[in-house]
């Protein structure tokens, strides 16, 4: 069953007065429980593709469908709802709100959504699994890079979303932290969440159920 897919997705940017395709005619299918890794050189269009899948940028042509809904045509309110509940994005770099504690950061999507009560037990369980239980009342400025990453992941997975999209989540992490993070992704994909991870690190490819390669805006299956 397809959760998220794109058809003939094209995104153009301008460089030195010339337009070029940062994402060129991309078809991607993301199914339930899948663990997809996208690799590719820097500048090949990976981040742009993720932004398109989240509706954060509008494509020049092509469509993105989520659960049958066309992301490029629905209104901002509905799209925000989807991002709040269904498709979680872990952007490149740190994305914690500095004025909130770790606990508040992790539960913040519930504050925005305003529908469900924050799951206190799941928070503890998750924090334990991610090794950040003792950090819950600490502010992000006191955290290391690996800890921040894990908090961001906790924030993304806490409500067991349909899809998780992560842009170089292990970019600046050591080997130990990298495998910890990949293990967590593996686990949640086992629970039915579709996971898409962009990475440079070839040693992580084994975690994936499918590996894709991006080059000059084009996406193709990786031949290994």
């Amino acid at each position, binding site marked *: 069953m397809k959760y998220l897919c794109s058809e003939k997705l094209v995104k153009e940017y301008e460089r030195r007065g010339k337009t070029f395709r940062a994402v060129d005619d991309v078809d991607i299918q993301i199914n339930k429980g899948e663990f997809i890794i996208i690799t590719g050189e820097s500048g090949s269009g990976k*981040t*742009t593709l993720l*932004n398109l899948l*989240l509706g*954060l*940028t*509008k494509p020049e042509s092509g469509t993105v469908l989520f659960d049958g809904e066309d992301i490029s045509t629905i209104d*901002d*309110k509905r799209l*925000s*709802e*989807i*991002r*709040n*509940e269904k498709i979680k*994005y872990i*952007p*490149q*770099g*740190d*994305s*914690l*709100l500095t004025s909130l504690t770790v606990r508040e950061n992790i539960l*913040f*999507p519930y504050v*925005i*959504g305003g529908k469900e009560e924050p799951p206190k037990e799941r928070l503890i369980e998750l924090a334990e699994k991610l090794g950040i239980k003792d950090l819950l009342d600490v502010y992000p400025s006191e955290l290391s890079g690996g800890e921040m990453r894990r908090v961001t992941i906790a*924030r993304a997975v806490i409500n067991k979303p349909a899809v998780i999209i992560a*842009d170089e989540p292990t970019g600046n992490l050591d080997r130990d932290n990298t495998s910890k993070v990949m293990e967590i992704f593996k686990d949640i994909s086992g629970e039915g969440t579709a996971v898409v991870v962009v990475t440079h690190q070839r040693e992580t490819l084994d975690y994936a159920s499918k590996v894709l390669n991006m080059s000059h805006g084009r996406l193709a299956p990786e031949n290994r």
Partner: protein
Amino acid sequence: MLAALIGSYALFVGSVLKGSLNNGMTRMQERMGADLMIVPESSEVKARNILLTGEPEFFYMDISVAQALHDIEGVECATSQFYFTSLSSDCCSTRVQLIAYDPDTDFVIDPWIDERITDEVEKGSVIIGSEVTPLPDGKVKFYGSEYPVAGKLGETATGLDHSVFMTRDTMHEILSDAKEKGYQFINPEDDGAFVSTVLIRVSENADITGIEKEIYGKAEGIKFIETDKLINDLSVKLGSVDRLINVTLTVLLVFSFVTMILFFSVIFHERKKEFAILRILGMSSSKICFSSLTEGLIIGAAGGAAGLLAGILTVFPFNRLIENSLDVPYLMSPLPVVILYGLLGVAVTVLFSSLASFLSTLSLSHAETYYTMRAGE
């Protein structure tokens, strides 16, 4: 916040000043009962001082001037007054203008009496201007003798607010006391022979220049002050003060608005990343705009209130100072009007800062790059 403060401060102080100037002008116009004032040729400036600044002056001329007015066509009524001064040590905290008037012919003072304490201005009692403070026992004291107060005038925004009015008899007593103490104005024995000014009201459509010519022919060493001209001169002066206030007000308001826009664009630019995070976590752009609008509102209200407070602290304590330094009639607007000005000032700043925050958020949310987290770049 500071910008909002400046904005509401400027608005409040500016509008109070403008309002009070207009108020003063209208009041003065209302109160100018006479059309013409005859004064000694050499004392024109002194006479203007009495009217405009309340600076006490002393001058006189022969009473024959008053007599010269008989059977001049166009003179509806005329009355004479005599001006001299008190000592600052007497009472009322400063030297005041003492004015003897003639209750029988008077047409300028009587209509201003605001608060009548006794029915008649008895021999020995006086009428005080609105700014004159009597002694604790309710009397006033000049050259050692005390005089009961028979009434008080309403505010006129002119120098006459600092004057004390009396009959010729009382004047005679004061002059005698003064002489005893070594202050010689005119010899009290001859005081019936002098006046300082003759005030004239002309009949409607009378030819003022013609009347002046006729009087010039009968009396020498005199000068006319036309109240219409006086008010006109003041209007011109007032106009320039008013323009100055307008320019200052505009500059400050524009400055405050521009600063607010800059301020909000800077803080929102700094929070670009924060906005992007909120978008990714599923906050809708309308919600983000709304929360920054609220923020602008709060900042505007806080700054506006602070500005209003600063304005109140300027306008009220320095009321006198402003009045004296402006050299045009200034009379504080009534309190409800002042309150209205204050509310207006705060409202405008709140509007400004909300608008500024809203505009800067809007400009950000239109930029596509603002949504796309390109961290590290």
